[in-house]
């Protein structure tokens, strides 16, 4: 008991010092910290959105839309290929799930049809083990009666969904960066969710609008021969205008060819501005080389014909091509307000989402409420801390003081570790810290009670202390491990704030094993050596 190896003493002091140093930055404000030399700028605890104010949005990527789009692409491709080769067919369409089916008029053409249709498949990613002909994501079956079933492989469907989520996250990040929000957190959660956290944003309407828009921009020709009030001819569809040209008038309808001439992917820049003649807000854009060339070609071929600028299946405008546009840039003059023009420019610059996003959970905390919560949290910690400490000293005297020092150090270590881990501290985390204060002294209570018991049995001072620590240790270990089990499960199964709570308690339990046992023991040893008491007054 009396012997405390010098290296152990040194280690205890070192850990204590490290705890105090890493906790210290949290006593300063951000501004104060930034005035210090850079080597002294240790990380502070990240405050959760409930403490600093901000918006938490959970988005769901509609991965089924990606699948649908791919299937529609196969239908269109099939239509074109078969028509080119003059192969007759009926009933071409999506047959539910991940299957496109059709019926050949002449089953004898099955061989040629298969060759054409197999081309609709795309090479599988990661198909490193496939030999011979590259494996594709599409399986083509033709029955003797001429019924064709083209099935997308499950793996390809999953892969496509996964990459849609990853791509969506990138686009979300770009769009949010464009709005100038500071330190946003954007991360994938589960298989099809994206979690967006925006500190300081207390009205996320604009961002929700930006994220809720897919922003798929296409340039397509308008079919001037068809009547928009009749069913659309094959290869075309009927689309509505974005909003009525004249207030309160019904929105216009257009027959637009399905074939995409140029798409938004080919844009390199988009800026909001004003039309020089009318003064209306517009969005001007510039194509990349490929897009510019393509745009020049169609405008040369189709002078005098209208083309449609389509955003998410709404026609923004359908101007008539007056002259070939060769410079690779143009402008969209929908019926925009200034904000709409700005938002559209942001969307076009950031690119289109591969699939629509939905906000399925939203939590917003205003900055004032956050500040109130911090204040309440700090007051609660101080009061809880003081109450527990008064209690400990009243019950155990000097040994209570040792426990108080240990709990204080424990608090510093928790803050230090949370800062170094860059963990996020939210209100439940503060509750966790407070609970740890109450539970950490349990170890000291156990030890002190045990020492009392042993002393009552008539043991010497050293023997009672020794027995107190060694007997209490197994109890402390058992009780802390069971709590850790509960917290590990809370962490594994819980979400955001609940996890913060589990982390705070787990860290607190581990550090309390050090402070309440090792540090207190060191203090008792030093006290024994310096005062050499004959009896224990605990």
């Amino acid at each position, binding site marked *: 008991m009396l012997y405390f190896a010098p290296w152990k003493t040194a280690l205890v002091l070192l850990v204590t010092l490290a705890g105090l140093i890493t906790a210290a930055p949290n006593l300063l404000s951000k501004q104060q910290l930034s005035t210090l030399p850079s080597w002294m700028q240790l990380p502070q605890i990240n405050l959760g959105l409930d403490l600093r104010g901000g918006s938490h949005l959970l988005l769901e990527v509609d991965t089924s839309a990606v699948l649908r789009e791919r299937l529609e692409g196969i239908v269109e491709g099939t239509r074109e290929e078969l028509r080119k080769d003059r192969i007759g067919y009926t009933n071409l369409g999506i047959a539910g799930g991940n299957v496109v089916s059709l019926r050949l008029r002449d089953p004898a053409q099955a061989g040629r049809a298969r060759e054409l249709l197999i081309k609709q498949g795309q090479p599988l990613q990661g198909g490193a083990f496939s030999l011979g002909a590259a494996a594709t994501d599409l399986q083509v079956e033709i029955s003797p009666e001429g019924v064709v079933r083209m099935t997308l492989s499950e793996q390809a469907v999953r892969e496509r969904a996964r990459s849609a989520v990853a791509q969506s996250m990138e686009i979300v990040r770009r769009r949010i960066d464009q709005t100038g929000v500071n330190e946003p957190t954007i991360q994938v959660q589960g298989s099809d969710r994206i979690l967006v956290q925006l500190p300081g944003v207390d009205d996320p309407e604009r961002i929700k609008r930006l994220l809720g828009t897919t922003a798929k921009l296409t340039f397509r020709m308008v079919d001037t021969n068809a009547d928009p009030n009749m069913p659309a001819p094959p290869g075309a569809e009927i689309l509505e205008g974005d909003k009525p040209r004249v207030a309160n008038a019904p929105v216009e309808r257009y027959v637009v060819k399905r074939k995409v001439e140029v798409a938004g992917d080919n844009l390199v820049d988009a800026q909001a501005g004003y039309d020089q003649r009318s003064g209306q807000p517009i969005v001007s854009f510039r194509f990349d080389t490929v897009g510019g060339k393509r745009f020049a070609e169609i405008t040369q071929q189709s002078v005098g014909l209208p083309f449609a600028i389509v955003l998410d299946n709404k026609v923004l405008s359908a101007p008539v091509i007056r002259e070939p546009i060769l410079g690779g840039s143009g402008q969209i003059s929908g019926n925009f307000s200034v904000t709409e023009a700005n938002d559209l420019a942001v969307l076009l610059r950031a690119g289109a989402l591969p699939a629509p996003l939905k906000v399925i959970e939203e939590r917003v905390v205003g900055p004032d409420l956050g500040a109130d919560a911090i204040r*309440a949290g700090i007051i609660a910690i101080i009061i*809880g801390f003081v109450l527990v400490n008064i209690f400990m000293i009243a019950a155990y005297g000097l040994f209570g003081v040792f426990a108080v020092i240990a709990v204080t150090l424990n608090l510093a270590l928790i803050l230090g570790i949370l800062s170094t881990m860059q963990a996020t501290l939210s209100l*439940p985390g503060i*509750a966790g810290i407070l609970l740890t204060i109450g539970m950490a002294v349990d170890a000291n209570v156990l030890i002190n009670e045990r020492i009392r018991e042993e002393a009552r049995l008539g043991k010497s001072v050293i023997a009672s202390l020794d027995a107190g620590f060694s007997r209490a240790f197994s109890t402390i270990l058992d*009780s802390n491990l069971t709590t850790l089990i*509960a917290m590990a499960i809370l962490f594994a199964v819980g*979400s955001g*704030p609940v996890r913060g709570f589990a982390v705070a308690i787990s860290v607190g339990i581990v550090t309390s094993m050090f402070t309440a046992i090792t540090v207190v023991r060191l203090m008792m040893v030093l006290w024994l050596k310096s005062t050499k008491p004959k009896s224990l007054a605990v």
Partner: protein
Amino acid sequence: MFRLRLVPEKTNIKFMKGRFAGLAVSAFLSIASIVLFFYPGLNYGIDFKGGILMEVRLPQAADFGALRGQIGGLNLGEVALQEFGSSRDVLIRLERQGESDEAQNLAAQKVRSELTSAYPGAEVRRVEVVGGKVSAELFQSGLLAVVLALAGIAIYIWFRFEWMFAFAALVTLLLDITKMVGFFAVTQLPFGLTAVAAVLTIIGYSINDKVVVYDRMRENLRKYKTMPLRELIDLSINETLSRTIFTSMTTFLAMIPLAFMGGEAVEVFAIGMLFGIVVGTSSSIFIAAPLVLLTGEKWLRQKKAAEAAAKAAPQRP
């Protein structure tokens, strides 16, 4: 020198005399809790039910009649208003707006603009919108967490002690949990993720308390090889009583400030914890220990006697 003492230095209370009374009271309370769980049922928070919650600070004291009219006029289904903190602070709860998430967002936006136009200077301090899918998932994961925690703890206790200790701990925890649920049903405090966190924390806390008593029982089983189990359990409880009361006091004290100034979510957590600490502490003495006595009376003693006979050398813990 002054020393605060919550219990006398040496107690000799015959706790096991009241074993059937303790079990009966506990069983009654737990059954009552289960009844309360079905009727009137829990006041599920929006985490589990989905819906919209808004915390608003108005420029003047809230007139609930007028507010009800204004928000009710938006036709968004059932609206619950609650004063919170000061008379200017109002919590607004709206039920889930159908299955679509867009409808929810739209409704939240409508309430926000209605309030800011009716009360210029009104400050929307907090908005939570939870969709049906998310709330169902949160509920499932909450339930899963409780079940897994129970299983993990029971396995650990089984591993460290005898099986009857694990069995007694598991039954006691189930009784504790049902009472927690009953408490939330009686008080109608919103039962959401924070409530589940409180339940899980109490599971951890309660088992902590049991482990201390079990540990002492194990030690005494080795020390007094012939003492009847009933006396031995009473002795172990008495020996640890001072610590049991003390630790629950410190934890209780640490939670009190949170219960009164922590803000809505933390308040729910802290009040649940305060109740749970009382339940968890009393169940160590009145439920867990009698259960070990009832299940282990013959088995533990016989096994110990056999072990003692087999190994002449006394064991050290």
